């Protein structure tokens, strides 16, 4: 399959390892990976802040740039929700409506793509650590992703998954929310971290780098004995 990998702006700049891991996994499964360099961002920051016109300008480049793609895989539940769920609303009754709908229908979040579209769960990975999993809100509630990452993690050799009580609670990131309401945002993150620490896991794994940036930011500041890692990086570990 010819796969267009959509790399969210902050993953591109801050977490390239996660994106490179996705490339490695998809190629190892025998697929061709493409990356559209003309696209920088899905437009979510403007969209979530209410500036839909500005968001459309950014998003139009994604919609047009990926028009010919066979399938689009995106390494973030949040940006995945943007393309899959919010583009149709953003472009409703505009000339790009049809193309936006077409893009939405061929866009998959990374773990969802592996499990549901490719039917693959065992990637031959080895990660001898105790981990706990954070469900990113957009992936969980907008895209319905819950079992997919767990099915993948279950097949990782040596890995023990201990669920935390607050697995489905928001980490407090919320894009511009984290900057507009930094203290509420951090308090939410503190709750998440405390719940993760209760499991005594070594790593908090998630499919959303933005959540992990928030969680790691708090953990580092508070010098807590647990680390964050993107699921793709776990799945390429040997």
């Amino acid at each position, binding site marked *: 399959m010819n796969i267009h990998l959509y*790399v969210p*702006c*902050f*993953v*591109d*700049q*801050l*977490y*390239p390892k996660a*994106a*490179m891991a996705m*490339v490695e996994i998809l190629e190892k499964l025998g697929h061709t990976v493409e*990356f559209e*360099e*003309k696209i*920088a*961002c899905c*437009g979510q*920051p*403007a*969209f*979530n*802040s*209410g*500036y*839909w016109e*500005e*968001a459309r*300008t*950014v998003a139009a*480049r994604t919609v047009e740039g990926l028009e010919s793609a066979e399938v689009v895989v995106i390494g973030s539940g949040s940006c995945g929700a943007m393309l899959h769920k919010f583009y149709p609303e953003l472009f409703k009754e505009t000339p790009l409506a049809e193309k936006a709908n077409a893009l939405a229908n061929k866009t998959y979040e990374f773990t969802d793509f592996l499990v549901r579209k490719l039917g693959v769960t065992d990637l031959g990975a080895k990660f001898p650590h105790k981990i706990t999993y954070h469900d990113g*809100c*957009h992936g*969980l*509630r*907008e895209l319905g992703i819950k079992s997919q990452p767990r099915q993948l993690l279950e097949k990782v050799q040596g890995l023990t998954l201990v669920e935390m009580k607050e697995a*489905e*609670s*928001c980490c*407090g*990131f*919320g*894009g*511009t*929310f*984290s*900057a*507009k*309401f*930094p203290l*509420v*945002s*951090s*308090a*939410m993150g503190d709750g998440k971290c405390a719940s993760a620490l209760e499991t005594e896991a070594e790593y908090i794994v998630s499919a959303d780098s933005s959540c992990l940036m*928030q969680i790691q*930011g*708090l953990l*580092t*500041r508070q010098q807590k004995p647990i680390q964050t890692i993107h699921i793709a990086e776990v799945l390429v570990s040997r």
Partner: protein
Amino acid sequence: MSQDLTHRAVIKKALGAYEIKRDENRSKYLNWQEARQAASEIKWEAVNHLDHYLLEMTKNLEARGTKVFWASNAEEARQYVISLAVEKKVKSIIKSKTMTSEEIHLNGALEKLGYDVVESDLGEYIVQLNEEPPYHLVFPAMHLTRGQIKEIFKRKLGSDTSDLPEELTMVARNIMRQKYLTADMGISGANFGIAETGMISITENEGNARLTTSFPKIHVSLMGIEKVIPKLGDLAILLPLLATAGAGQQITCYNTMIGGPRQPGECDGPEEFHLVLIDNRRTELLADAEQRDALHCIRCGACLNVCPIFKNSGGHSYGTTYQGPIGSVITPHLRGLQDWKHLSSASSLCGSCTEVCPVKIDIHHHLLHNRRNAATQMPVWWERIAFKGFSIATANPALFQLGIKIARVFQPLHFLVKGTLFDPVRAWTQTRDLPNIPAKSFRQQWKSKQ
């Protein structure tokens, strides 16, 4: 900060017990999702044919001697109650829980005129004594500990008890029982209005609403126009759903249907029953097809109980009658977008509210819609400049690359909003560390891989 943490712990503890009971009772449904769907369809039918069902309900109520008053705003509603109190020479008023009364600021208006107004719902009574607004639309005093309540009673009522709930309840009960006997007007809310039979339905756990609506000579019920439902049978799904979602109960202890004042041959009930139907800009929300489903709300408070913003910042921080996610959705419609748009930004859009809403209101997406409406109608100048810059930078690869180079030198994403109040870095680094910026972006690694 330590004060904050204590407060958060109190809320967490209060909600912990609720969560267990809610999950237990939700699991008794054969299919909770189907129940939500059915409830949502009932409310959809009612809200989309409000004109029809309101007239059917009032016609049936009036046939049994109920006086119906249509209040288009808070002022009209308050004036009606005040005029009635004056006309009937009312002295003492007892109330059962009604958020609509909070919405129209009725207590203050009545007290200003010298009326003795007492809340009979225990939680409401406590916050009334403590001179503060309800903290939560279902649990008004959830932020107070037993120890604090004991102190409030001691200070305001001169009681000298322990902090045992039984003893505290007896203090309130002894006062309340006298009030029921002396009050000449009882004011209640209405959880539902039933068109088919011409009734209002009141849900409660303390029995105080029954006494409030039947002991005094005059009963006044305040009801938002969106509370009407088509049929009596609809309560079969709505009452248990409200109880489970709102209080973690299978069904609330008392569910009362009132169809009018005391009828000939009946041995109890008030001589007069007045129903005040309140619009107060609900029809403006009705006119908004996109967010009309916000009128489905049955005020169960489930969305507050799961909301991380509510749990961490508390009910009083909203400054609204209706707190939490649903309050953030409807308050801009009821009280003006300009003054209340900030509530819609105070959300991480996690969607927990929408997930639990028993009548399937698309709550968190409406927060997005409010944000869009606010930005369209009255954009904040620096935000608009920031996002114009954002759209230009990210839509143009060359410019984006340049921006990234600058960002690498300074801080990631800082270039978008540098020097503004919107600066994410300043807000971020107060409590959090920034990730180390890797030497090579994915883009660069991809290029060298090709």
